[in-house]
């Protein structure tokens, strides 16, 4: 832009405006291309978010510790999003954040697993999560999962 500054004292100040317009044009075109790209990406994103109702999952996970077992079970059974993986993720996050305090009994556990399977989720990762939360878990817990931790 130094050359433009040189033009300042020139009687033909219009030349400066023309110069800036010409130099700006390629940059503006590049910006337009980038913005157009992001517009179409955002459009696809909005559709995807609506299909999977990701916003509600986000809100749920913000205060995941407030969910009780009954609420969680209802959420898993509810036919909301068509993506089972989101429910699985929600459940795992809930379990990870709440498991140390809550005592999930075996019956409740099977209920959760059934709800997840019914929604079409692949629950083969659940044993790992269990082991992750209760590393010293007796493989055959007597009554409940959490009460059988032996340190």
């Amino acid at each position, binding site marked *: 832009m130094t*050359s433009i500054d040189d033009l300042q004292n*020139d009687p*033909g100040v*219009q*030349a400066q*405006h*023309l*110069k*800036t*317009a*010409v*130099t*700006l*044009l390629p940059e*503006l075109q590049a*910006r*337009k291309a*980038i*913005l157009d*790209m*992001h*517009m*179409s*990406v*955002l459009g*696809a*994103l*909005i559709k*995807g*978010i609506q299909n*999977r109702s*990701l*916003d509600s*999952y*986000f809100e749920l*996970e913000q205060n995941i510790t407030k969910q009780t077992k009954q609420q969680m079970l209802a959420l898993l059974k509810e036919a909301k999003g068509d993506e089972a993986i*989101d429910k699985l*993720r*929600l459940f*795992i*996050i809930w379990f*990870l*954040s709440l498991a140390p305090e809550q005592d999930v009994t075996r019956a409740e556990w099977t209920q959760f697993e059934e709800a997840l399977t019914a929604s079409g989720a692949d629950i083969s990762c659940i044993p790992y*999560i269990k082991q*992750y939360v209760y590393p010293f878990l007796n493989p055959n817990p007597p009554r409940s999962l959490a009460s059988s931790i032996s340190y």
Partner: protein
Amino acid sequence: MVFLVSSSAWVSESPLLGSADGPNLSTRRNSHHTLPQGCRGRGGCAEARQEVERPHPQFQRQPVLLEQPAVLIPRDGNVAAGVDRPRPQCTSTRWPRGSVVANEKQVDLTPMLSHSITYQSLVHDVLDMKLNRITVETPVDESNPAKGVTKKAYDVSANDFFWQKNAGVPFPEVAGKAIPSSLAMRHGGLLTSKQRTSTSSSPNTRTTRRPSRQGRA
């Protein structure tokens, strides 16, 4: 040179954290206190002070503060070769400054699974993004999904101003604020430039424009 360290106690005591030939004398003085008796007082005070100025002799023996010995990884990144290789003797002060990688054994699973609403994480979650290429699948016919989908790929380039600014911004903000403001900026810029061009269409200005443009190109 990278040191993998498993004990945080060693990290805080390590003289490596100060640069080997920098003015970080305090670290070296402190590390002097951690020397075992054999290293410390061979020839009295004067020699001990001399020893401080030299690189730490701790590198030449097994570190006592470590549960596991530190692993030296050579620059070529071959970890396995580096483990068995004998440690380089530290005789000069031009010891390359190392970086410390502290490994945390605990892994937090929650952030990997949580639903985030930042622009970038949503692009990863909803769309397919790999190596800065976003693939968007749109159905050919909205009402009839059986007709198949068209795939469109977009590249996020390094000079993508919008991505740089908004990748970590929550999605509602991106869609509600960033896009309109960027559009307004664009239109504003175009408008002013158009106005400028329209006002400067006299022939004599055109002749002044030409040489400067060629000079730029």
